[in-house]
C-alpha cells in the first residue's frame, strides 16, 4: 500500500492503458470482463491490496474511474446497496466473509439490499424489533423491514436485528448478512404516492442466517450500522462504473445497459424529488409566468437558496479536503437545505403551471415531469433521515444545545413501543 503513494498519475494511467489495450474488447461477455477486471485489481483500486484493490488514494482512484469514463470502458458493478455491503464487510468482516462476499459484489454477480428500517422504527432505528434468535449454529430471523431499495432483485441483504432484549436498545442489536433466496424471506414492492415502487417491504418468517454470517460480535450491530450509514453519506454521488456507455456499440454495452436499467430503476424519480430547480427559470420564461410578480419573487428566493446551498456545500467540501472532521453536522445542514429548496421549487413549479398542475401523465406539463415533481418532493424531507432528525443533529452537534429528556434508556424489553405500553 505504501507503494501506491509513490506512483504518479502518469504511472497509473500508463499501467492502466497498457492493461486495457491488451484486454478490453467490447465483444466480450460482461461477466467474463468483470472477472478479468477484478483479477487485474482495476475494479476497486482504492481497496487494500489484500482484497482486490491497489491501496490507491481517493484521488488516484478517482483518476482511474475518470479514465474508464473517458475511454468508454465498462467498470465494476453499478453502485447501490452492494457498495455499502462491501465497505462494511471490508471494515468489520472476518477473512472468510471477505473472501466469500467481496468479489461477487465487484463483478455484479450478487445484488444486495439494505435491511435496516422497520414499520415501527423509522427515525428511531435503534428501536427495531426484528428478532434474531440463536439456534445452535444459526439464527432464526422473524420480523419485518421496510424501505428496502431493490430487495426484489437482491441475492443478499445486510440486516440489523435484535439479539438481546434485556440490555438498553442500542446494545442488543446485531449485524447479519442474509441470503434473500430462501423460503422465510418475502420481498413485496411497496407502491409510493407518486406511483413508483422503488422500495420493498421484506417479511422474515423463521428465515435462517448461519452463525458465520454475523458481522462483528452480537450486540455490535448498532456501531457497525453506523459505519454503513457514514459510508452511505460519504458515497453520495460516487460512481465507479465507467459512465458514458449509452451510445457505444458492442455486445458488452448492451449487457451493461440492461444491468444499469435494473440497478438505476428505483432512482429515476430522484431528480424530481429534489424539485428540479434546473427547470424553474426556463419554464418561467417559456410559459410567460415570469411576468407574474409573485412568480418573480418566489423564483428569486429559490435561486438564492440554491446558490447559497451550493456555495455552502462547496465550502464544506473544501474543509473536508483540508482535513477537518465536521462531516456529520455539515451533511445535516446541506440535507436540510435540500428539503427547503425542493419544497420551494415545487411551489415555484406550481405557480408557473397554475391550473395545469392538476394534470399528470404524457399530456401534462413536460410529459408528466412537473406532476412527478409535485408528488415526489414530500419524500425528500423524510428519506435518509427526516428534517426533524437533521434539526436535532444541527441543534445538538453544531449549536451544542442539550438533548431532550429520554424515556428509552433502560432494558429494551421495558421500553414502551406502542401507545398501549404507555
Amino acid at each position: 500500500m505504501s507503494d501506491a503513494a509513490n506512483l504518479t498519475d502518469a504511472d497509473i494511467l500508463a499501467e492502466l492503458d497498457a492493461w486495457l489495450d491488451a484486454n478490453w474488447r467490447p465483444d466480450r461477455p460482461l461477466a467474463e470482463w468483470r472477472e478479468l477486471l477484478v483479477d487485474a485489481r482495476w475494479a476497486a483500486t482504492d481497496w487494500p491490496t489484500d482484497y482486490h484493490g491497489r491501496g490507491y488514494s481517493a484521488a488516484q482512484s478517482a483518476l482511474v474511474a475518470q479514465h474508464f469514463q473517458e475511454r468508454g470502458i465498462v467498470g465494476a458493478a453499478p453502485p447501490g446497496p452492494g457498495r455499502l455491503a462491501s465497505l462494511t464487510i471490508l471494515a468489520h468482516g472476518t477473512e472468510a466473509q471477505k473472501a466469500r462476499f467481496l468479489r461477487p459484489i465487484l463483478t455484479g454477480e450478487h445484488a444486495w439490499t439494505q435491511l435496516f428500517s422497520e414499520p415501527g422504527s423509522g427515525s428511531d432505528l435503534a428501536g427495531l424489533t426484528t428478532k434474531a434468535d440463536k439456534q445452535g449454529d444459526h439464527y432464526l430471523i422473524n420480523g419485518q423491514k421496510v424501505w428496502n431499495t431493490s430487495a426484489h432483485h437482491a441475492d443478499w441483504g445486510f440486516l440489523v436485528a435484535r439479539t438481546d432484549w434485556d440490555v438498553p436498545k442500542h446494545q442488543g442489536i446485531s449485524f447479519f448478512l442474509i441470503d434473500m433466496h430462501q423460503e422465510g424471506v418475502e420481498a413485496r414492492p411497496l407502491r409510493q404516492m407518486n406511483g413508483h415502487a422503488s422500495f420493498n417491504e421484506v417479511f422474515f418468517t423463521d428465515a435462517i442466517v448461519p452463525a458465520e454470517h454475523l458481522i462483528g460480535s452480537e450486540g455490535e450491530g448498532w456501531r457497525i450500522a453506523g459505519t454503513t450509514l457514514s459510508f452511505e453519506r460519504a458515497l453520495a454521488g460516487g460512481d465507479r462504473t465507467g459512465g458514458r456507455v449509452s451510445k457505444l456499440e458492442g455486445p458488452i454495452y448492451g449487457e451493461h445497459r440492461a444491468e444499469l436499467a435494473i440497478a438505476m430503476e428505483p432512482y429515476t424519480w430522484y431528480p424530481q424529488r429534489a424539485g428540479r430547480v434546473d427547470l424553474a427559470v426556463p419554464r418561467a420564461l417559456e410559459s410567460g409566468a415570469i411576468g407574474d410578480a409573485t412568480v418573480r419573487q418566489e423564483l428569486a428566493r429559490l435561486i438564492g437558496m440554491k446558490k447559497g446551498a451550493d456555495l455552502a456545500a462547496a465550502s464544506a467540501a473544501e474543509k473536508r479536503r483540508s482535513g477537518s472532521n465536521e462531516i456529520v453536522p455539515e451533511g445535516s445542514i446541506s440535507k436540510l437545505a435540500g428539503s427547503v429548496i425542493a419544497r420551494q421549487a415545487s411551489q415555484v413549479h406550481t405557480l408557473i403551471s397554475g391550473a395545469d398542475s392538476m394534470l399528470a401523465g404524457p399530456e401534462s406539463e413536460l410529459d408528466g415531469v412537473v406532476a412527478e415533481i409535485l408528488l415526489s418532493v414530500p419524500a425528500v424531507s423524510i428519506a435518509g433521515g427526516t428534517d426533524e432528525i437533521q434539526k436535532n443533529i444541527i441543534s445538538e452537534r453544531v449549536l451544542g444545545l442539550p438533548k431532550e429528556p429520554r424515556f428509552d434508556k433502560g432494558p429494551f424489553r421495558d421500553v414502551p413501543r406502542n401507545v398501549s405500553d404507555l
Partner: protein
Amino acid sequence: MSTGFTADQVQFREVVQRFLTAKSPPTEVRRLMATAEGFDREVWSQLCGEVGLAGTHLPEDYGGFGFGVVELGIAAEEMGRHLYCGPFFSSAVMAAYAILNAGSEEQKHALLPGIAAGTTIATLALDDLNDFDQVGGSMSAASGALSGTAPMVVDAHVADTLIVAAREDANAPVGLYVVDAKAAGVSVRALEVMDPTRKLARVTLAQAPGKRLEGDANLALLWDQLNTVLACEMIGGASRLFDSTIDYMKMRVQFGRTIGSFQGLKHRCADLLLELELARAATYDAARVLAGQPGEPYAASMAKAMAADAFVACAKQAIQLRGGIGFTWEEDTHLWFKRAKSSEVFLGTPTWHRERMIRILEAQEAAA
C-alpha cells in the same frame, strides 16, 4: 461555517475584532447612540489611523491599503457584529466608492486620502434610498448650482463633504457633485431615527456650489458595491444575535429544564442557522464577484435580499426566544433589532432586490 478566506484575511478579521471588542462594547454603543453626533471622535481617529480601516479597499495611491472589497466586507461584518457607531459606512463606503467610481485622477487624489485617514468625513446624499433608478429626480444641478432635498442622508450631520447625486435637467444622466457641507446654500437637519446607531439627516440645498465628479456616476455599480458591503455588515449583526440567543437558551431554565433542550425551540434554531448560513454564503460570494471572480451578475442583490431576511429573522427570534426580557430597553437585543430593521430597507428592500435579480436574469436571457 463558510470559510474560503486566506490566512491573511483571517488575521485581518482578528485585528478588527480585537479593536472593536475593546472599543465598541454594548455600553459604548448605548452611550454614543444617545449623543447627537453618535460617535466617538477619538475611536474614529484610531480606527482610521492606527488600524487603517477606512482605507481598507482604497488604492495605496489614494492613501488606502490597497485591499479589496472582500477585506472591506470583513471589516463591515465585524462592525455589524459589534454595532460600531461611526461614519464608516457613510464615509469610507458610500462616499469613497462614489468617488472611486466617478472621480478623475485629480479628484480622487484630492478627496480620497482625507477619507482614508478619517480626517475628512464624507457622505453620499441620494434623494432616494429605495431604488437607484429614482435617484436624482428631485435634485437639480442646473447651471452648476445644486438645489433640492435629499430627505435621508446617513451621517450628514457630521459630514465635511457631501457627494450629491443630481441631474442638470430631467433628461440628463445623474451626476455626482462634490459639495462642501459648510458652503452657502447647504442646510442639514438631524432627524429622529428608528435605529439610533445609524444617524440620518435631511440635506436641503439651495443654489449650493458643487463640482461634478468627472466620470459616469454608474449608480448600478455603486448600488452593488454598497449593498454587498451592507450585506456583510448584516451578516455580522445576524451572527451576533444568533450566537447570543443560543448562549441564552443554554442558560435559561424553565419547567426544570434549560429552554435550549425543548425540541420546538431547537428546531427553530436549526432553521435559523440554515437561513443564516445560506445568506452568509451568498454574501461572501457577492464580495468575491465584485472583486472580479466569476459569478452571477445579480450576486449583490441576492446577497442583500438574503442577508436582510436572515438578519430580520434572527432579530425577531432573538427577542422571542428571550421572552419578556428581550423586549426591555435594558437588554441589548433591541440595539441589533433596530439595526436589522433599518438595514432591511436601506438601499432597496429584499423584495426590490429579488425583483432586480429577475430583471437582470431576463436581460441575460434576452442577450443569450
